[in-house]
């Protein structure tokens, strides 16, 4: 398969701080990949670079063969990249339905004149958009709650609604920033299954930032590990779990040495620590 997203030598500085340093990154179409790393490693910064929230200082990012660095956020969204946020950023005072309708914004065509005149095509488009929004509500198990304010939904529902809003844009690539943050293990399990379903049923390529190792190891086909803005490891989960530099980055040198002595640890032991 052809790579969907190719980042080369991406560098982002904030003053003297190198948030992302010469990062090379490739994402295959139809894959589920994770970016992990300790706090402040530059994961979210990297996301913001892809989605056009930040302008990169050096390097290039190509999406589906097109360079996207320097494009506006809405242009990038039009190309097919949608995202969620580390701290949920729903339109809090809009209902769940309205959030999903805004999500479809870029796929709708009606102009203001058409809306004022209430032409048949506008009405038909609105009807389809509402139908699609209701379908998405069912998809995330929120059927019947469409008129609830986003801010009044339970936390887990808000997370899923945010994902659904991103899906409403019909993206090719979905960037999920800590989709299971603040969830208990049962909810994490649901979210993992949900994300896998997105890829399997809808064929959407998924890149996620995640701290919960159980989720990361359970879902990812490839993992990229960042530390101080640099890529320190990349590979399938089993490989990453055994990687000495990764363990060191997470636990510090001394603990890493201790862990290394117990090298016979079964896979998955990291999850207990993290």
């Amino acid at each position, binding site marked *: 398969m052809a790579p969907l997203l190719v980042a080369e030598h991406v560098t982002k500085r904030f003053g003297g701080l190198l948030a992302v340093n010469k990062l090379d990154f490739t994402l295959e179409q139809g894959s589920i990949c994770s970016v992990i790393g300790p706090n402040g490693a530059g994961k979210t910064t990297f996301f913001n670079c892809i989605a056009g929230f930040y302008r990169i200082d050096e390097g290039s990012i190509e999406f589906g063969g097109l360079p996207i660095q320097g494009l506006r956020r*809405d242009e990038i969204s039009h190309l097919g990249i949608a995202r969620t946020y580390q701290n949920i950023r729903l*339109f809090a*005072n809009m209902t769940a339905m309205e959030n999903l309708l805004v999500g479809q914004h*870029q796929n709708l065509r009606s102009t203001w004149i058409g809306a004022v005149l209430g032409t048949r095509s506008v009405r038909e488009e609105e009807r389809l958009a509402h139908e699609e929004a209701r379908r998405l509500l069912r998809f995330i198990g929120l059927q019947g709650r469409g008129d609830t304010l986003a801010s009044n939904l339970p936390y887990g529902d808000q997370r899923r609604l945010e994902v659904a809003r991103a899906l409403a844009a019909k993206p090719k690539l979905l960037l999920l920033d800590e989709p299971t943050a603040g969830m208990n293990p049962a909810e994490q399990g649901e979210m993992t299954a949900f994300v896998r379903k997105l890829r399997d049923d809808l064929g959407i390529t998924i890149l996620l930032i995640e701290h919960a190792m159980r989720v990361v190891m359970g879902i990812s086909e490839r993992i990229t590990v960042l530390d101080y803005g640099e890529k320190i490891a990349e590979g399938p989960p089993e490989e990453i779990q055994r990687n000495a530099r990764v363990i060191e980055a997470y636990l510090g040198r001394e603990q890493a040495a201790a862990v290394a002595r117990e090298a016979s640890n079964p896979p998955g032991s990291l999850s207990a620590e993290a």
Partner: protein
Amino acid sequence: MSQLQAETPSGHRVAPETARPSVGDAGWRPVLKLGLLGGAIALYLCLTGIVPIFNPRALIAGLISLGEVALLTTGLGVGYLAARRAPDGPRRALLGATIAGAVAGAFLTALVLLGAAVDLRGIALHASPATYEILTFGFGIPGSWIPIVALGLAAALGGAIQVLPPRLQRPVTTGLMALLVVGLFAGIIRTPMLASPLTDQLGRLLFASEGLTLVGAIVTVVVVLGGQWLNRRLAVRRRGRELPQAQRRRLTLPVALIGLLFVLWLPQGVGSFFAQVVAVVTLYVLMAFGLNITLGLAGLLDLGFVAFFAVGAYTVGLLTSTGEYGIAQWPFWAAVPVAVVLAMLFGAFLGLPILGIRGDYLAIATLGFGEIIRILAGSDLLKPWLGGPRGVTSIPKPIEVTPDSFLAGPLQIYYIALAAAVVVAFVAIRLRDSRLGRAWIAIREDEDVAEAMGVNLVQTKLLAYMLGAAFAGLGGAIFSTLLGAIISSSVNLFVSINVAAIIIVGGMGSIPGVVGGSIFLIGIPELFREFSEYRFLFYGVALIAMMIYRPEGIWPSRIARRELHTTDALEPGDPTAVPATEMGKA
């Protein structure tokens, strides 16, 4: 808790547990505080001249004047609040209310006594014997104790309303409100009644030349309370809510027709001065709909609204005027589209450089634009074209009629403004419920996320700005024909402030709110010309009170209400959380 809050009759957002502190907490201190506050307000009302100037007007002829009403209302309000803050128990609440009122009244007594000893007119113009006469209800210095008793009694009444069971509370408050409203508008109701031989006798019976007669007051209270009782009895409103959508739709048409007939009849019934007032109110309704798109939906605080108003007004003025500065002598109907398009282009022109500015900064930048326009319009630089301070005159009326036609004068402008306002409201509603309206609200909620959802910020914001400008231009265009002239002093900052205040007081994003806000802020001050000096004083007080007690406006939209009241009351995941639809219907 949320339900209790929602049902507080006054709509105040006081949590029940803080409403009645136990004796141990605060005791009588809040009562005294309220008394002091009431005293300060009463003094303020007297010394700024509100009481003496209101006084010649009567609420009930020969019985109570508006000046006295202002004072007694203060007492009433203090009593109402004091009874809520007083220690538990209805008797203590009443006592507390009376004490608070008496404390407030003591301020006035002190003023009268001090005024008797020293001439205070050097400090405050209105600290005159005439004012003291009013304060003592005509008894002068010997009756200096009277304010204490009067305000104490008024406060006791206020306290009584507070401690009454809700079943009685509502009739008493409605009765008092009805008396106040009908009394204030007595002149407007009386004029058309006397004009017709059919109602002439009745008009004389109910209304004196100023205010209600005693009979009129009794009839008013009886009619209003009777109507309320009937209403509840028939449960018209409740059934109306429970009707299925289709049946409600069928009801809408007759109701709308009656409303339409009323607004068409309105200015004719009440004479030409009122027709002019109603026309101005309608113009403001129209412009408020425009700003509602920019401010209410897209959240762009545009204080340079007057700039587009000016473009519309001067365009029509120049194109149609038969006077000195007229350039084309076009008919009004040809000039209006040009004015609207020009205002829109102007909106784009001014909007482009400031689109990146957010929030408060945008308000400042647009404020600057508004001022530039005002100064330019009156400047010597543009005097050869715009006439400077004397402006463009001899602007003909849109429809040429013989002077004795009923369409002569402000009436036709009213109808034109009304038609324009209906069109604008229609456009505004259609836009609000469209893809574009959702994008505007999304921008207001979170600009960054909206953009990441594919909303083109420049296009979308610019469109909001331009449509708002177009409606302002339309308002200006009609305004210029209302007066037959457009002078530079008409295009001042207050146009912007008035429109913004209408939206804030009426309720952001709400259509009935805009109408109510216009009547309240434009209509009432225009009608009570003798109080026009105090117009902005009332504005200030009204705005502050609104922000404290009802930040979502008199008649808020669904969105604004839930924004300001439900989200902070309901935590996410709160088991008592009510879905927004239910709240919207409630």
